């Protein structure tokens, strides 16, 4: 197996980089797998990776209708943090955070996880109450966090307008030093490469068009390119397409798929070295290692599968950014795009059994699932391996929308991220 290292790079440069091995194979699918993962986004690939590596289930296929990591994984603003309010979600996101912290080494692939810290700004008294509540909860859950006042915020990000002249002056912030960003594509590729190395078949450009269900039990999937492929268990990890897939399996989910947009500035010299988010003014930004400001917009109000949203959403975001960072007024916006996010009424994911036996769904991450990628994959893999939900996934059952045990994270989820 080809290991990556600086030395390897040197060696390959001597042979004009002609001898690099493929990062993953391009296999023709087998007739049957132990587990089929539908959806080759970060979560699906992470699930496959942990299934094979940690749980020893290697007869696994990931079926992706487009290119690996081309869904929301390709288009998110890459913010990683674990400062969620309720125990259930805090534990899940912190589980992911711990995995992030060793991920590049584990995968032998540099996902450029950059723990540059994240500020969630407060602009009203209620914001500050919520921040205080969340940070207190985080600390008792073993998650790093601090409550900062406006002066401390301004020391961390001097270019932020922390003056009283602002329409909504910054009153303070929560600060999670271990939070940060990662290179989204590399995360998908690193997990894909890792999964492939452990024998997982990655089937790209192949759409799962239906489930094969016998007596209420899923026994495989239909595909547009390779026909039927059998499986003992199927994990559906298709983010924005979850409702579409659920409909094929004959049930509804408490989800709606909405456009979520983002945009980048032209690359500029490093000027913003933390993640800054504001629920109230409603914008957030970080600067990528390439220099572009990566800016997340709000979610559009309607169901949309176009991977694009409405223009006013972009406008409001840009207003917020200029309001927060007046010096960016003359910087220019390069590109905007959209993803399709599956939003859940309580802003928490669904990691769950379904009305169909052996069919599991991992979805509903909405505007904020990138940060959970390794954790989500890890607990989902554990669940698929056993056929029983991992204890961390247990509270995220889709059936909580029947019994009422919701985990409302709107406050912590706040602006889309």
């Amino acid at each position: 197996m080809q290991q990556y290292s600086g030395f390897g790079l040197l060696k390959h440069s001597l042979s004009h980089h002609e001898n690099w091995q493929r990062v993953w194979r391009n296999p023709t699918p087998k007739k049957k797998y132990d587990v089929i993962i539908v959806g080759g986004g970060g979560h699906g690939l992470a699930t496959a990776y942990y299934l094979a590596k940690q749980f020893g289930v290697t007869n696994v296929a990931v079926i992706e209708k487009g290119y690996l990591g081309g869904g929301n994984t390709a288009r998110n603003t890459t913010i990683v943090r674990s400062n969620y309010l309720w125990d259930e979600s805090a534990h899940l996101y912190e589980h992911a955070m711990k995995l992030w912290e060793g991920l590049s080494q584990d995968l032998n692939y540099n996902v450029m996880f950059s723990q540059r810290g994240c500020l969630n700004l407060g602009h009203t008294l209620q914001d500050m109450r919520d921040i205080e509540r969340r940070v207190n909860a985080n600390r008792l859950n073993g998650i790093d966090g601090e409550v900062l006042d406006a002066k401390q915020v301004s020391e961390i990000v001097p270019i932020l307008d922390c003056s009283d002249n602002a329409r909504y002056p910054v009153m303070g912030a929560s600060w999670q030093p271990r939070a940060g960003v990662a290179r989204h594509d590399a995360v998908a590729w690193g997990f894909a490469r890792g999964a492939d190395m452990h024998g997982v078949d990655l089937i790209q450009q192949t759409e799962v068009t239906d489930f094969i269900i016998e007596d209420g039990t899923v026994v495989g999937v239909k595909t547009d390119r390779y026909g039927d492929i059998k499986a003992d268990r199927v994990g559906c990890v298709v983010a924005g397409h979850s409702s579409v897939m659920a409909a094929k399996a004959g049930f509804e989910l408490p989800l709606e798929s909405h456009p979520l947009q983002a945009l980048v500035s032209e690359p500029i010299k490093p000027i913003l070295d933390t993640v800054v988010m504001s629920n109230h003014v409603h914008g957030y930004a970080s600067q990528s290692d390439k220099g572009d400001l990566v800016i997340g917009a709000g979610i559009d109000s309607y169901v949309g599968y176009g991977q694009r949203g409405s223009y006013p959403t972009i406008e409001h975001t840009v207003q917020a950014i200029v309001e927060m960072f007046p010096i960016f007024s003359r910087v220019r916006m390069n590109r905007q795009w959209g993803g399709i996010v599956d939003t859940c009424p309580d802003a928490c994911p669904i990691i769950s059994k379904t009305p169909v036996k052996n069919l599991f769904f991992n979805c509903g991450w909405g505007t904020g699932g990138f940060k959970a990628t390794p954790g989500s994959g890890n607990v989902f893999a554990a669940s698929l391996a056993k056929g029983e939900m991992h204890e961390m996934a247990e509270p995220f059952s889709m059936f909580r929308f029947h019994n009422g045990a919701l985990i409302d994270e709107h406050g912590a989820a706040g602006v889309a991220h």
Partner: protein
Amino acid sequence: MFYIYCPYCGEHREEEEFHNHGQAHIERPADPDSCTDEEWGNYMFFRKSPKGLHHEIWDHVAGCRKFFNVTRDTVTYEIKEVYKMGEQPKVVAE
């Protein structure tokens, strides 16, 4: 950005004047008290989110403040028809 025909104002207006209220034709159960948790949960939370034709409610909030239904393609974003509350769609998925 959508340009939506308001059936009450009788002209097209910009999306910014409207509010999306999600899936249309969800009726509140006539007798909630006899619903099971599952039925009630389905009513409150479980939704169609089709890729293709979708019937949804919009509200002309900044205009006449009336709610109405829209049939829209969720991929191309084309609006196929608008119709008033209480009416049924003419354009429906196969």
